[in-house]
Each structure stands twice: as C-alpha cells, then as structure tokens.
C-alpha cells in the first residue's frame, strides 16, 4: 500500500493535459479523509518541495513542482 504522499504524487503524475489542480480534486484521492487531514499531507509535500502552489491571486491550485508551461517563465 503506497503512503498517502505517494498516492498524491501518483495521482498527479498520472494526469495528462492538466498540470494544476484544485484542493478539492486532490481530496478525491482520499474519499474517506477529512479535508483538514488531506491538507496536512499536501502541506508536507509542499514543504518537501515536491508540490507547488499556483495562484491567480483569487484562487489557488496545486501542481507537481516544475510541471506545466509556466515554470520556464519564472526563471
């Protein structure tokens, strides 16, 4: 059984066409977990540098670090 963090990474790696996801999309990986518990898993992944936030200013999404076309523009 993969760890919770691995499950998130697997979910994100398995997605094609989209690189950024709403918090609620990631909650679906753990249908039996409370949102606050899912948040803890995601926060750990962010702190480890494996996930990063994308923000429009009004909404925030999560994605794998470096994924998507915007990364190149930031450098």
């Amino acid at each position: 059984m993969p760890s919770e963090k691995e499950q998130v990474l697997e979910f994100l790696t398995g997605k094609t066409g989209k690189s950024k996801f709403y918090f609620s999309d990631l909650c679906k990986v753990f249908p039996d977990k409370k949102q606050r518990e899912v948040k803890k898993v995601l926060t750990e992944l962010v702190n480890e540098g494996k996930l990063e936030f994308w923000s429009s200013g009004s909404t925030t999404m999560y994605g794998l670090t470096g994924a998507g076309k915007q990364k190149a523009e930031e450098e």
Partner: protein
Amino acid sequence: MAKHQTPLLDQLETGPWPSFVSDIKQEAAHRAANPDGLDYQTPVDCPDDLLGVLELSFKDKETHWKHGGIVGVFGYGGGVIGRYCDQPEMFPGVAHFHTVRLAQPSGKYYTADYLRGIMDIWDLRGSGLTNMHGSTGDIVLLGTTTPQLEEIFFDVTHKMNTDLGGSGGNLRTPADCLGQSRCEFACYDTQDLCHTLTNDYQDELHRPAFPYKFKFKFDGCPNGCVASIARSDFSVIGTWKDDIRIDQDRVKAYVAGEFKPGGGSHSGRDWGKFDIVKEVVDRCPTGCMSYDGAKLSIDNANCTRCMHCINTMPAAVKIGKETGTSILLGAKAPILDGAQMSSLLVPFVVVEKPYDEIKEVIENIWDWWMEEGKNRERVGETMKRLSFQKLLEVTNIKAMPQHVKEPRSNPYIFFKEEEVPGGFAHDEKAYRQRHMR
C-alpha cells in the same frame, strides 16, 4: 524626459482629484535621480514601463498582464501574486511585476518609523510603488521580481515583525476598525479579537485549502467602519443587548444649541438651528423614537441599531452597557451571482477571551464549506445554494425570530421528524387510501 509618451494617461491628471498617474511619474523621476544612492534590485525604470503598459492597454482596450503564477515564498500558498507583462520586450521593467501583500497592523496604527522601514525595504527590492491599502485592508506592495521575494519576506518578518497577508483560496488578511482604542461606540475590543484570530488561524492564512477566499472583518459597532457586512464572508459587528442610554439634560443642551450635532461635522455650511424632531426622531428608520419637547424616548425593542441618533448626539445618547457582537455570514462582491450582504447568524454573543464561542462558529462553518463548497464558491453562495436552514444545522444554532428577514412568501416549509417535538408518524398506506394518486 519620460520614457514613453502617455497622452491618454496624462489626460487623467487633468481631473479634480489627486492622480495615481502623477504618483507613478513622481516615483519614476525619484528612481531615475536616485538621491539615496540605492543599488536598486528591480529595474530602475519599472515605474516608467508601468505607465507605458497602461497607456498601451488604454489604446488597445485590452489588458497586457498575464494572470497568476507559481511565485511565492517557501511554504506559503498566499501573500504573493505573480504578475507578468505580455509585452516584455517593449516593457522590460515590468516583465515580472509581482504583487506582495503584507498584513497591516490591527486598526491600521502606524508609526513613521515603521512606514519608513517598510519603504526602505521596498525602495531597494521592489518598485517603490504601494497601494495603501488594498480592498481587504492589507499593505499592497506593487511590483517586484521573483529573486527578490524571499529577500523581502526575510526582511519584513525579521526587521519589521510583519507577516505576509492572504491571497488565493485562503483566509484573507483579517481587518478591523480601531475599536476601543479610540472610539466610544466600540462594543468590544476589535483589535484584540482580530489579532488573536490572525495568530490562531495562521495555517488557514498561509496554506490554501478553501474553495475560495474567506474574509473576516471586525466592526466595533453598527456604524461599520470596515464595512464588514458588505465586504467580509464572516462579519463581526458590535452591538448591545440592553437599552440605549439617554442623558435627558444633554438632549436639552443639544436642542438649545449648546452641543454641536454630529460632533461638529458638516459645519462648513449654515444648516440652521438643530431640529431634534426633523434631524433625529423623524429619521429613525423604525420610528421607535419620540420627543415631547422635554423628553426623548426610545422603544428599544424596535431599535435596529442604525446608530443615527447616537452619531448625531453622541454626548447625550450612548450605546447600552451590556455589549457584545452579532455575527453575520456571506457577504461578497459581484463576481458570480451579484453582490450580497451578510445574513445574521448569531444575534448576540459576548466577546470574551479566549473567544472559544466565536471560534466554534467559525470552525463549524469552515468544515461545512470545505466539504460542500464548489470550487470558486464563496461561503455566501454555498449558504444560498444549500439553504440558511442547513447553515443553522451545521453551526448548531437554533432558528430564532432574528433570523427572519421578511414575512415568508413560500408556505411550503418542510420539517424533519426530529425537528418536531414528539416527532410525527406518517402512514403512507393509510394516506393513500384517503388520497388517490
């Protein structure tokens, strides 16, 4: 000589009001002159290019900013908003022009030293341009580059003891009026409540997990100086339970002209003699006041806390002594579904440290909204979609007369069995014998 010709923007400066165009030009000239000999860490001409890109947008009638980005400081999901120009070759100074939000002090109390400290950091590491304050109330620093973000974050936290504010699907920077620090109308200590909840909800402020933004605002009284009822999802508005205090001698003094009405405001013009009936009694929105020539009376049960009598005659009419707050939920601006004011959820609660009663309401709402809210749905929209009744259920608040907005127009109210004392039995078979399908 300006870097870009800006005839359309120049026209904005001809109006009667102070102009942000003039401000940006002033900063452009200041940076070009660099009187303090700073080693600018963002392009020196960024204010010039900002004017240039704005002029182009006026000409094209289109924005030249791209939306959003992945910039931020490590571990924080809010406080920095990535901004990129889509004409970077024409305007290299604003190719990367990120916004940084800082939490303003409670009540927006500043010292000159503090403001200079913030500007020392921002002149060096940003554009020098600010927006004091953003709509939510925070200090908005406009325009810096990605490599400067961690440096700015280190400096504001270590030197200024100031944290980043909120952005994105987060709790936004809480805001309050100056409350009991200066105002006799304040029914609770807005600054302490605002500061405490800001500290207690750090995780919600910096690590986004909400469907959309969520704002707290704390008004000490129903005058609503931070307009919480219109501008915050969770509006805390001071109120009182007992009667408005009236000093009849001072009422007479107002009538005799010994006190200036409204604390002397609007005195630039002669409005004639103060007329208590015309200016106070007849202006009461619920008509709960009367004046018989000697005594002012208020039917307190019908007072809706409009504050007009108290504002007009503050020396004679005062808020009650049994003070606390009302809590309302769901205000928002009109992005989806029109603007909305907050709806009354808790008519009265005493505001006492450690504020557990208020926090319980907040956390119940969050748990519900995080579970049920759709992406980009404000809690006020969730409340409308799933009903106020549902909100009462999740916050464990019993329905009460204060929740009724108007006489009901829909006669079909469905009660659940557990809501009716003694429950009820429904025999479908027997019912169908009497009523054919």
